[in-house]
């Protein structure tokens, strides 16, 4: 594996329609919100989770593309059983001596780290902390993703739902004791859903070629990362998410490892504004205050400023 030789920065625009892109555990799973401005947030780790899930789904079991940090729905126990049934792996006695095999030297630690990088896509991409007792090293991955923030303040709506069943006998009794005598509602349980009617979110990402050298993150991995960013929501549908989709993925490719321009100056070239009668209007423009709230992607307009691009920087629109 030859590591990538170019630095990249990217802007990902994704939207949610009638769904909850990222619940806040502190707020009863309401969509995350910046409490001061009401802009919606999606945490970095939420996006990384989706990238991992996509890679796991699309390249399950492929050499070098394993995922270390997994959701438990993956049927790995099944895999292990299969391995255990096959001759060379069958109940290796070493397996039972867990916890006594810490690396003693730096070389050993490096070998462990290198092996983890070679086998696991997520370790190679995002890094991992690998230590028990004796520190075997920490891998800093080349890909760094920041919190995503919505383009405009979002409204989180709370929707009550009902279920025509009780969880257990006790609950059923409790309900029956109420004065509600209609049969149909006897077993009913109320629940709550939080949705964002519509939100367009913007995430920024950074890919360091210099850190890629250390983990062996190569061109194939880069391609896979971009594919994952473009398609990850297609495979993440659930009752909570509503409709989510990646809308734009704009990549800035530098022609050197260290890069040719500051990431933030490049990000400022991607401007997202409201589409008012086909015209680009800045979201902070007071003149659009009376415009109806955005409810679909076409209510927004994305402009990329390609003028006077710094030397050695190329804009690639992946989506």
């Amino acid at each position, binding site marked *: 594996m030859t590591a990538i030789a170019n630095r990249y920065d990217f802007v990902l625009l994704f939207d949610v329609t009638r769904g909850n892109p990222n619940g806040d555990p502190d707020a009863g799973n309401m969509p995350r919100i910046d409490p001061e401005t009401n802009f919606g947030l999606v945490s970095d780790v939420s996006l990384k989770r989706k990238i991992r899930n996509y890679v796991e789904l699309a390249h399950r079991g492929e050499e070098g593309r394993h995922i270390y940090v997994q959701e438990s729905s993956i049927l790995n126990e099944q*895999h292990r059983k299969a391995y255990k049934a096959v001759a060379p792996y069958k109940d290796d006695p070493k397996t039972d001596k867990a916890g006594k095999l810490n690396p003693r030297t730096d070389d050993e630690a490096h070998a462990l780290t290198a092996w983890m990088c070679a086998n696991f896509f997520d370790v190679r991409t995002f890094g991992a902390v690998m230590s028990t007792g004796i520190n075997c090293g920490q891998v800093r991955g080349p890909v760094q993703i920041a919190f995503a923030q919505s383009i405009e303040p979002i409204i989180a709506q709370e929707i009550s739902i009902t279920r025509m069943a009780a969880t257990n006998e006790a609950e059923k009794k409790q309900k029956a004791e109420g004065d509600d005598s209609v049969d149909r509602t006897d077993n009913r349980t109320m629940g709550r859903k939080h949705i964002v009617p519509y939100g367009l979110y913007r995430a920024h990402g950074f890919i360091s070629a210099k850190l890629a050298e250390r983990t062996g993150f190569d061109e194939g991995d880069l391609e896979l990362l971009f594919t994952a960013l473009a398609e990850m929501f297609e495979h993440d549908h659930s009752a909570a998410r509503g409709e989510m989709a990646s809308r734009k993925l704009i990549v800035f490719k530098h022609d050197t490892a260290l890069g040719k321009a500051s990431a933030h100056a490049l990000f400022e070239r991607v401007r997202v504004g409201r589409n008012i009668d086909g015209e680009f209007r800045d979201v902070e423009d007071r003149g659009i205050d009376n415009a109806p709230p955005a409810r679909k992607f076409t209510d927004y307009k994305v402009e990329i400023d390609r003028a006077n691009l710094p030397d050695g920087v190329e804009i690639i629109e992946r989506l």
Partner: protein
Amino acid sequence: MPYGIRLLVSGERALFCRPEMKVERVSYDVITPSAARGILEAIHWKPAIRWIVDEIHVLKPIRFQSIRRNEVGHKAPAGKIKQAMNRGDLADLQILVDEDRQQRAATVLVDVAYVIAAHFELTERAGPDDNEGKHLDIFNRRAERGQCFHQPCLGTREFDARFELLSPDAPPPTPHPDDRLPALGFATPRDLGFMLFDIDHAAPGRPSLFFRAALQDGVMTVPHPFSPEVRR
């Protein structure tokens, strides 16, 4: 001070974690010298040089926000990795995040901007080719063009730092007149208590070093690493 540089760094959020409150992370009020050093090293560093942070100018009011996230409870055990290497299969090498869940809150800073005033010294690992001018040139060139080894961050990697080199003769940026409040040490100096200075990676056990931080007129003066103000 010879070969000083000033870098303006800013970002929407930042987390300079207090070591005593790292389970549910709480940030210091301002960037620590060690985080500032990390930002400089993200732009340019070689074993031949050592960055010394001299001053930190705080340009925005100190405000906090709380974020709770689902995190995993364990690190990757080295022993298990070695077993898997020896065995030659990956079957049980994984972290199941749903079974190893910890919900942790982080109290982070919002909307920060600092000027890091720093210089560097040559270390004992400097070779015959290393001179201060060369490294200063490399740093200035990179910082001016927005080049970096990896994107610097404000404490943790999800909070990226934007950076801008201030030219040596430019007047120092100052906080907005409305923000010149006692909280930033205007009118009366503000004691920030003991703050992490850095971690001594060379010493056995990697001890943390602390210093008594104070803000005076928006500026935190940072002692030299080998001065008595730094408590070991």
